[in-house]
């Protein structure tokens, strides 16, 4: 897709590529290739390395310690990180909380929290979803009760990714029940080590622990834990989720995985001789995925070019979320078919020389059922597209 980039951008890509290859420790790249849920320590290490270079908050404005890069430059940077098998940055701190705080937070909040997000010294988790309020935040039940000098938060958060090692939670709670459901919500910063916070692991179908249920039992937060204005949490949450949706297209990860999938198919023996990659049916599916992936990449570049001209992403975010999440699933579907019997057992004893390329695919495939569900299910995204774009 070279022709969609300027010469300057191509030069930028070469520069970024060389830098990342130089900065990225080999063991982190290897772990990223093998796994899906990285440890806090691994993520923090890469975060720190990037921060030293000034690239940790690569999509933040320069005024807040970001790079000030254009949306296309960020795209290039993320693509090069994925290509190099760099660990993903913690979604919550860098991608979601940071922008929320520098957009709506107080000066004190920015000064206190932005630097540690950038450096990876503190990790965040998201406290929006509840068991009865996944896609439907308006039915949120967690409450924040005003007390002298602060608030007392009571409730239960579900599907809290990385909650078991996060330092801080950005927590949505009901502060006003006299108004219509979405109007009475506020956003708070909550210390995960505060009394009353307890974190219970949820094992997902890939057998791993990355999400949690977080019980908030009379957790006290100070007055300055409130982000922005009281009862405006719904607005902030929507802002944050808009960012999440573009991010959830995961196009760079898909491109990288697609490359690895082709390599896997090219190394996997086919029944009756040859390799799987040469079976006509597999070839056709690979070619079809290549086309869909190109469509997704070009769509994201169109949206980013619009952003460069100052247009904020609207329902386009829903489009790329729908397309991107389905594509992620199609890629691992194909990987399962390429692996056949080798893809349905998890334990490896290491004796198989091919295990390297196979490692992690099955777990990813299982966990990946979630990508069409989280950050607003694809059905909700389609309703958004129908209503806001098509006027239905």
């Amino acid at each position, binding site marked *: 897709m070279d022709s969609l980039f300027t010469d300057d951008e191509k030069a930028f890509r070469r520069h970024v590529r060389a830098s990342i290859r130089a900065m990225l420790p080999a063991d982190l790249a290897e772990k990223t290739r093998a796994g899906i849920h990285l440890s806090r320590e691994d993520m923090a290490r890469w975060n720190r390395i990037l921060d030293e270079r000034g690239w940790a908050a690569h999509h933040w404005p320069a005024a807040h310690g970001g790079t000030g890069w254009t949306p296309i430059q960020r795209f290039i940077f993320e693509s090069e990180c994925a290509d190099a098998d760099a660990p993903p940055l913690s979604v919550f701190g860098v991608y979601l909380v940071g922008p929320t705080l520098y957009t709506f937070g107080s000066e004190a909040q920015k000064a206190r929290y932005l630097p540690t997000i950038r450096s990876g010294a503190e990790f965040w988790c998201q406290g929006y*979803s509840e*068991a*009865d309020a*996944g*896609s*439907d935040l*308006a*039915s949120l039940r967690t409450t924040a009760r005003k007390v002298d000098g602060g608030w007392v938060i009571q409730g239960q958060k*579900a*599907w809290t990714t990385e909650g078991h090692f996060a330092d801080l939670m950005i927590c949505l709670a009901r502060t006003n029940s006299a108004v219509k459901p979405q109007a009475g919500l506020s956003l708070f910063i909550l210390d995960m080590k505060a009394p009353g916070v307890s974190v219970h692991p*949820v*094992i*997902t*179908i890939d*057998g791993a622990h990355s999400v949690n249920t977080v019980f908030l039992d009379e957790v006290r937060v100070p007055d300055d834990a409130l982000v922005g204005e009281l009862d405006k949490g719904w607005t902030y949450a929507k802002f944050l989720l808009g960012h999440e949706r573009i991010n959830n297209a995961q196009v760079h990860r898909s491109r990288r995985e697609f490359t690895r999938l082709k390599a896997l198919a090219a190394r*996997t*023996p*086919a*029944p*009756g001789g040859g390799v799987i990659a040469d*079976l*006509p*049916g*597999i070839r056709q599916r690979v070619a079809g995925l290549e086309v869909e992936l190109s469509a997704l990449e070009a769509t994201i570049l169109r949206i980013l070019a619009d952003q460069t001209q100052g247009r904020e992403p609207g329902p386009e975010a829903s489009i790329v979320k729908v397309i991107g999440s389905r594509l992620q*699933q199609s890629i691992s*579907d194909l990987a*399962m*078919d390429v*692996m*056949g*019997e080798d*893809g*349905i*057992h*998890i*334990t490896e*004893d290491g*004796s198989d020389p091919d295990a390297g390329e196979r490692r992690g695919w*099955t777990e990813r*495939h*299982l*966990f990946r*059922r*979630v990508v*069409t*569900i989280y950050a607003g*299910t*694809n*059905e909700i995204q*389609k*309703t958004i597209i129908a209503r806001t774009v098509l006027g239905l």
Partner: protein
Amino acid sequence: MRRSDETLAEDRLLRDSARRFLEERHPWKEPAARRAAGDPAATWRELAELGWFAMAVPEELGGLGADAHRCLLILQEAGRVMLDAPVMTTLLIAPRLAAGSDSPALASLLDGAAAGDVRFALVTGSDRGAPLRVAAGRLDGTSALAVGAAEATHWLVVADGALSCLDAAATPALRQELRLIDGRAASVLRFDGVPVPDEALVATGDAAARLAAEAADLAIAGTVADALGALAAGIDRTTVYLRERRQFGQPLASFQAVQHLMADSYCEMEGLASLLLWLGAALDGDPVERRRAAAAAKIFLGRQGLAAVSRCIQVTGGMGMAEEYPIGHVFKRLQTAAALFGTADHHLHHLAAG
């Protein structure tokens, strides 16, 4: 051949009693909890007492002479509760192969199997590694995933040149023990010049090739039956959840998008059930039709069946993602079934080349 009204009534009785038994004694649990709680040997004896392992044995060999369709009904019920016990080979495959063989190697073990003392596991060759081959009385090669091989007393080994029935305890094989994503145990076995005594030979030459083809299609039928049972239970559980769970002020069940996704899944499940019905009848008939029916069922499972169960996870949201709830396990059971005995791509490739 289509079933008579009388036969169908008997089928229903059998299915209902199996369902009652399994739901009471072996309701679905998380695989880890099930393994911790269960006693595989006791389960096996229980199932033997129900007559499961005598039903497919021909009457002339002392069994009940049930046809393939009836065995598949039982395997569907096992799939509904996602039973760990690897019953398919003992219940369906061994008795039918014994009936097709002149040798007593397998037939002589059927009484023991009916009593629950003999447990078979099917051992087939890997499409990708060194083929399983019997030559000059010795077995070489690497197996595909053999579900239940570790628990089995006897291995029913489908190799080029011979079909044999080996005493597992007495057979020196390099075993790689694996845990499938659906929680069941499977092994990869490597044989290096293992002697195959004459009395273990079920068939050789053309007869072995004929029985090998039958074993492959039987294995597909049993696998699809299990998966269909799991899918049906998954759809049932999903609809219960959708009726209970509310979002945006109304039950999830009331959203048209959710209704239509589940209607699609239901249509796919019905298509799979229909192909299995065909395959069940075809198992008693012409091998060419049997092959086509087996391929069709396996392809449909790998495409439409997986699509159907994926939608169950989609509409149940987080519930489907959590290891402690059954929907995700249904997904894994179907994903496993889709990979065993040839993927959809594999069978489509052969059908397309055919």
